[in-house]
């Protein structure tokens, strides 16, 4: 006969067994498979956070949201990456190179991201790229100007979805000599780091390749973040070069412009500022008219008014109140490339794709991005090329707004070295194989 106690006991045992069963069950597969977790690395603190780092974060968040909601313009209006929503994990790049390697490992091993996107600083890229291969982590470098990533290395899991620094110098040289064919002397004022040294080298060699009698009369390399350029400006006033090249950006660029305009340097010297366009919305009429200006590619004021380009700029301006600088475009472009490759791989099979599969889908990919076309055609399909753009700055007093006039676009194959060739060697060899028509 069953007593009350034994009934309660049976009930308790049944509940206990049911609880063990439930605990032992694997978590519902759908909640993991729905998300495509991506690490996003950019400068969130430090002197360049405002001008380039935070805009990159904004670009990533804006494009990721549009991808997840399926609101990107055609042909990218499908939701998610391979049907899965992007889940961004933000990491601050301003903590130094050594820490970036630790953070990268953290993203891969603890936070279980499937891809890492971002990096603005050359040192960070060079540090994490070998780790990416070691951990087999798909890594899309969004900005990271140094050509050395693929010119001196052969990475399997690392891709760069924007052009590197060499096209900036080549573009500036071609444009300058078209406007001023009788240039005799040039000078350079750049940061004493890989970015500054490479930028000046590419510009100087390009000018001298196109016009061998041009002499470089002054080469200054200053401390990053120095901010005081009185002596450098005096040296330039003394030497009086025809042209001054600088790849300064952010606060240093703005400090240099304030100090040199106060002493009239711009009245005697043609300025070529290959990364200055990002500051024009802060400097406004403090940046003198007539400066030759670039924005590290066909972005921002140079972005073509395609549906995608117009969508990106308009949405960014409405959301953040300023015109997006190039890093926002770079980051959006990287996420877009990930979506295109991820969608391709998802269509051809089921389940979570391996990083190698997504990587192979990126190689040789050619796609319409936000106002330009990107072709992953260099370094075995790991390095992107785009056309370049350059113009002359003019402050529109009637509208109280900065503009760029006399804009010229150069085809990708005109300003990027051919596949397999290093930039410096290509320039010194007279741009062999360049197609500029």
């Amino acid at each position: 006969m069953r007593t009350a106690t034994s009934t309660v006991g049976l009930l308790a045992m049944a509940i206990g067994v049911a609880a063990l069963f439930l605990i032992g069950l694997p978590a519902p597969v759908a909640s993991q498979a729905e998300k495509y977790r991506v690490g996003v690395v950019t400068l969130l603190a430090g002197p360049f956070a405002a001008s380039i780092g935070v805009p990159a974060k904004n670009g990533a968040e804006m494009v990721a949201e549009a991808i997840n909601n399926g609101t990107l313009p055609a042909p990218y209006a499908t939701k998610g990456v391979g049907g899965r929503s992007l889940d961004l994990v933000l990491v601050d790049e301003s903590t130094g190179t050594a820490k970036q390697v630790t953070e990268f490992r953290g993203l891969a091993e603890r936070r279980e991201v499937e891809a890492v996107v971002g990096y603005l600083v050359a040192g960070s890229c060079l540090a994490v790229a070998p780790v990416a291969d070691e951990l087999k982590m798909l890594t899309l470098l969004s900005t990271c100007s140094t050509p050395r990533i693929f010119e001196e290395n052969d990475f399997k899991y690392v891709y760069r979805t924007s052009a590197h620094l060499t096209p900036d110098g080549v573009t500036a040289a071609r444009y300058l000599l078209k406007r001023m064919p009788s240039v005799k002397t040039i000078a350079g004022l750049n940061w004493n780091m890989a970015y500054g040294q490479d930028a000046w080298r590419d510009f100087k060699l390009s000018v001298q390749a196109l016009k061998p009698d041009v002499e470089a009369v002054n080469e200054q390399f200053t401390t990053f973040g120095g901010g005081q350029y009185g002596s450098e400006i005096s040296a330039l006033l003394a030497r009086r070069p025809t042209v001054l090249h600088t790849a300064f950006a952010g606060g240093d660029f703005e400090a240099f412009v304030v100090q040199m305009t106060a002493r009239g340097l711009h009245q005697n010297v043609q300025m070529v500022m290959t990364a200055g366009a990002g500051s024009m919305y802060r400097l406004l009429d403090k940046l003198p008219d007539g400066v030759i200006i670039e924005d590290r590619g066909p972005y921002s004021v140079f972005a073509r008014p395609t549906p995608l380009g117009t969508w990106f700029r308009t949405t960014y301006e409405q959301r953040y109140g300023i015109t997006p600088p190039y890093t926002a475009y770079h980051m959006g472009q990287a996420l877009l490339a990930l979506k295109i490759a991820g969608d391709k791989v998802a269509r051809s099979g089921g389940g979570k794709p391996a990083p190698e599969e997504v990587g192979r889908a990126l190689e040789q990919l050619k796609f319409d991005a936000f106002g330009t076309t990107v072709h992953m055609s260099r370094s075995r399909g790991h390095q992107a090329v785009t056309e370049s753009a350059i113009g002359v700055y003019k402050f529109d007093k009637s509208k109280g707004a900065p503009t760029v006039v006399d804009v010229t676009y150069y085809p990708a194959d005109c300003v990027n070295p051919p596949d397999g060739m290093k930039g410096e060697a290509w320039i010194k060899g007279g741009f062999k194989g360049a197609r500029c028509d």
Partner: protein
Amino acid sequence: MATLAFIVADGVIYASWLFIVAVGMTLVYGVMRILNVAHGSLYALGAYTAATMVGVWFQRGYAPLGSFALLLVAALLVGVVMGLILELGLLQFLHGRDEVVVVLATYATFLILEDVIQLIWGVEARPAPQPYSLLGTTSVGPLLLNNYDLALIALALLVGGVGWWALTRTIAGKLLLAVIFDREMAEACGINVRRVFLVTFLIGSVLGALGGASTAPMISVSRGLGVDVIVLAFAVVVIGGLGSIPGALLGAAVIGLSRAAAVHLLPQAEVFAIYLIMTLVLIVRPYGLLGHERLRKV
């Protein structure tokens, strides 16, 4: 000859700026034996406050020349408020402690204040260039100099001159000198050393903030300002001799002229010229050009 004129002019201008930035740091060390790493934060706070006030001033269309007074107001405001907070809230509890402990405490304060600055002003840069071009330029032979830079020379001379007069010609200055030379004896003679410390730290803080405020119109004020300047200020005071105000002047002059010479004559050397000079000085005179070996009391 023209190159020499450029070097001297640029060197003196840079030295003036360096002296204004560094003199507060060396004054505080001389009196209180505190190497205040947070001096960089005072500089940054002075710059941010000045840039904000100047920005509002010009937005409202007030008289442009009034912006110069705002730079001084910003320096006084930051110097007094932060000086009181730091001295009364932290440093007074560390008097007499090992100097390394005090350096670590001021370094921690510096890191905290860097984040406080970001909390208040965010990551956006704050340009305030309007005062920089207000005074026009002056041609001196081949040189075209900005009058704001020349005004910095005048400010540095004023700070140095007032400092020298106050130290050597006033009773308060003599009391301060007594504390510098022998704190214990000064206290035994009835000098209120605690009050001397407080006043000294306030003056040092105001000078640090003045360095930042006077620099704000020349640059785009942004994060990391304090980090860059603390290294330079340290080089100045070490070369001149820790605790020596004439040493700070001499150190600033040595650095200013050597940097200007490097920029004009050997640009590749500019990046390390300052630190090479510092190393050479310390090899020959370990206590700085005008510093003195301190006797250890047993």
